[in-house]
């Protein structure tokens, strides 16, 4: 079978001069014309990822308001009937894997199936037999210019004057004003005067990881691809690639106006209704393929290769279905497709550990080492005493108390650090994060002074967490009993600084949480607990 090539959506300026996008629009239009219960319909495919159309689901809003599908502003006009029978829903719908090592392979199969359906429809409309899904490389272009959404998605009509199926009303962007771009590091550098962004959140730093699951000296927990789990529709801790850029691109593309009016892309139960979703995931898949092309390997563990107990299954054209495992989608070559850009040489060089050793005044160069997961578990050092509430634009600071014994062990490791005795890794966990506004992003800071300057913000910045999946994870009768989301951030470099200042012995660490944009008045996000963990090498 000929190798199909997925091309950059920004080719030919990213508008409908790019025939990949024009045919994509036509194919989407044909799929949108089908009924909700037709496995070849746009809506059915969206529900495979996640849906708010069945009132029996534990996450369905009660009383029915957005994001229930019947409350979505058009375009598109989203149907809510006829529902497929219960068995079909149980088999196909709400399958998407998040917070799991299955995140990448499940989405690869999902894209493959959708692409097959689109290609069949495009062919029936007179389009090319070698059409393939384009990708949106928000890291691409000179000075990060491709961080902007391709213009074809912002146009309300196609060149022939008919309605553009790629245009969606509920897509608000990071500033909530309809201008959709991704605040990457490069983008922020080229917009120094934008008051919203002192630094770019979204990065491809995860590509420096060398371990799919677990951690080693180059890869922080929980690994590039995510933690080992069972079938995980609403997982807890997201993998490094999933956290950034995946989650952040979702919530920044969607954006919000209010807690009952946020972009489709921001919530897993509406995201796949937006055609930009598949271009985003095509880029995630491309990044995974590039990571493999650079010599990084996927797990050989049979538990990963065979997939979870509940199988992954997709509808295919001609009323067929395809049950697959991660072993079946382990490489893009096995699926007969490739990407226009798959440049392994562009992967960032790992430098976090080298920076740490410089901070700790350790001399010498690191010996080479092959990727190998740590055997030592991460030990709890301490935690906050009470939940933290986030409201409005205000920051909230919590004190994370450290156990004296664990703090001594950490200090000892940092003092004795050398190129042959690497310092402990330190992680901050935000646990049981609950709320209903998936479109929010929360900045996390360690030891942030009051009234910080932009430089102080950058110096204390631990990371940003996009709350993609928050509503479903917080549903009282949903998966994990409504325990909300969990996030793990590597704060080793910030703890090193405290150690060098002699302040680690204070017995606690101050953690500040600040929403990137002011939350709507009626909206509150709760962080159940902040805890610190140390992991010896």
């Amino acid at each position, binding site marked *: 079978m000929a190798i199909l090539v997925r091309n950059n959506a920004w080719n030919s300026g990213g508008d409908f001069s790019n025939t990949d996008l024009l045919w994509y629009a036509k194919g989407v239009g044909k799929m949108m014309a089908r009924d909700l219960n037709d496995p070849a319909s746009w809506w059915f495919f969206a529900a495979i990822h996640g849906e708010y159309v069945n009132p*029996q*689901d*534990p996450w*369905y809003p009660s009383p029915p308001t957005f994001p229930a599908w019947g409350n979505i502003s058009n375009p598109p006009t989203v149907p809510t009937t006829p529902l497929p029978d219960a068995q079909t829903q149980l088999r196909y719908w709400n399958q998407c894997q998040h917070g799991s090592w299955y995140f990448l392979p499940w989405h690869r199969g999902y894209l493959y199936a959708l692409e097959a359906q689109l290609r069949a429809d495009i062919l029936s409309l007179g389009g090319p037999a070698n059409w393939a899904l384009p990708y949106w490389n928000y890291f691409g272009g000179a000075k990060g210019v491709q961080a902007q959404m391709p213009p074809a998605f912002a146009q309300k009509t196609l060149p022939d004057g008919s309605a553009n199926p790629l245009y969606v009303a509920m897509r608000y962007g990071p500033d909530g004003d309809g201008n959709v771009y991704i605040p990457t590091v490069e983008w922020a550098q080229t917009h120094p005067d934008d008051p919203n962004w002192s630094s770019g959140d979204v990065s491809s730093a995860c590509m420096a990881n060398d371990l799919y699951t677990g951690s080693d000296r180059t890869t922080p*927990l*929980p690994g590039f691809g995510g*933690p*080992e789990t069972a079938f995980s*529709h609403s997982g807890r*801790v997201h993998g490094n690639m999933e956290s950034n850029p995946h989650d952040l691109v979702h919530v920044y593309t969607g954006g919000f106006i209010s807690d009952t009016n946020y972009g489709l892309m921001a919530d897993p139960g509406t995201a796949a209704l937006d055609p930009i979703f598949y271009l985003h995931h095509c880029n995630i898949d491309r990044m995974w393929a590039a990571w493999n092309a650079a010599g990084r390997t996927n797990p050989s563990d*049979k*538990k990963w290769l*065979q997939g979870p*107990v*509940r*199988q992954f299954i997709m509808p295919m054209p001609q009323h067929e279905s395809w049950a697959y495992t991660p072993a079946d989608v382990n490489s893009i070559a096995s699926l007969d497709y490739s990407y226009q850009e798959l440049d392994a040489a562009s992967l960032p060089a790992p430098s976090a550990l080298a920076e740490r050793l410089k901070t700790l005044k350790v001399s010498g160069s690191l010996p080479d080492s092959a990727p190998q997961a740590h*055997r030592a*578990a*991460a*030990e*709890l050092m*301490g*935690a906050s*005493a009470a*939940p933290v509430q986030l409201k409005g634009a205000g920051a909230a600071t919590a004190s994370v*108390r450290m*156990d004296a*014994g*664990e703090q001594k062990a950490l200090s000892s490791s940092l003092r004795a650090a050398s190129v042959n005795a690497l310092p402990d890794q330190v*992680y901050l*966990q935000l*646990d*049981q994060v609950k709320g209903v506004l998936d479109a929010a992003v929360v900045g996390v800071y360690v030891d942030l002074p009051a009234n910080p300057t932009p430089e102080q913000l950058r110096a204390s910045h631990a990371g940003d967490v996009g709350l993609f999946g928050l509503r479903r994870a917080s549903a*009282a*009768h*949903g*998966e*994990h*009993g*409504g*325990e909300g989301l969990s996030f*793990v951030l590597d704060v080793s470099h910030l703890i090193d600084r405290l150690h060098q200042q002699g302040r680690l012995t204070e017995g606690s660490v101050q953690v500040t949480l600040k929403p990137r944009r002011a939350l709507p008045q009626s909206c509150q996000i709760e962080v*159940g*607990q902040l*805890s610190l*963990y140390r992991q010896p090498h």
Partner: protein
Amino acid sequence: MIPDAHDFARVRYGVLGTALLAWVLLLNGHAQAGADGLQALLAVCSSSGRPWFQGRWWAWLELRGGLPGMALGPTMILAMMAPLALPALDKVWRSSLRRRRLRGVLLCFGAYVGVWLLAGAVMELALLLWTTAAGDLKGWAPAACSLVVAWIWQCSPLKQHSLNQCQRHPPLAVFGWRAEWDAVRLGLSHGMGCVGSCWALMMATLLLPQGHLAGMALATLLVFAERLEPPRRPAWRWRTMGWPRLLRPWLQRQLRLGVHALLDGLSNWAGRARAGRTLGLRRGG
């Protein structure tokens, strides 16, 4: 933090080993006491021949087969319900300082088992009162009635609510007496969710006039299979008592993984043996 399968292995195997030991004791009691022996022992727990009704309360201590009568109830609970405590124990393990971890796990487990012992005592009392009012309950009729009640309960929203509660584990305090108290509280709430979910099935097994062990084994399988299903909104729902949809694929998957692990192990052993022989030849040469 992210669950570490290796780190928690000691606790997991400890709990599963305890459950296995409990099953062995029950089966040993059955074997030593003869085919009817354990039936007679379990009849002490079931509706027929209530010894204290007949003034023979000391019959609880008279056992053939070496199994202390007072320990029969806890043994049954450990056999059937101990593995269901693992999610709560895992939460305590991950959320505790290393020096307090084992203490937290034991407190949580103790609270969980305590809830079940209390529930067992309440069920026994209920049967005693029923027997006092209605006379001895012989034959299959009481068991059949209890199975109908159990099935109605299985389909009820309260059943789903209890099942969902088993998945709910709030943050735990890390320092001071609150850390121990939160571990106990988790064990209590997890136990109450478990009792709420499974009490009807337990009652049905108690009322079986014969085939207790088989009934216990089936109930254990069903209860385990239910935990493979994701949580759902509490509602009246048709829920069969038969072969849950995920149990067969789960067993097939475990079998495949087990076979692969065995083949990998054999392959590694063969490789080491070949290396050893080669080394021997070199030494000899």
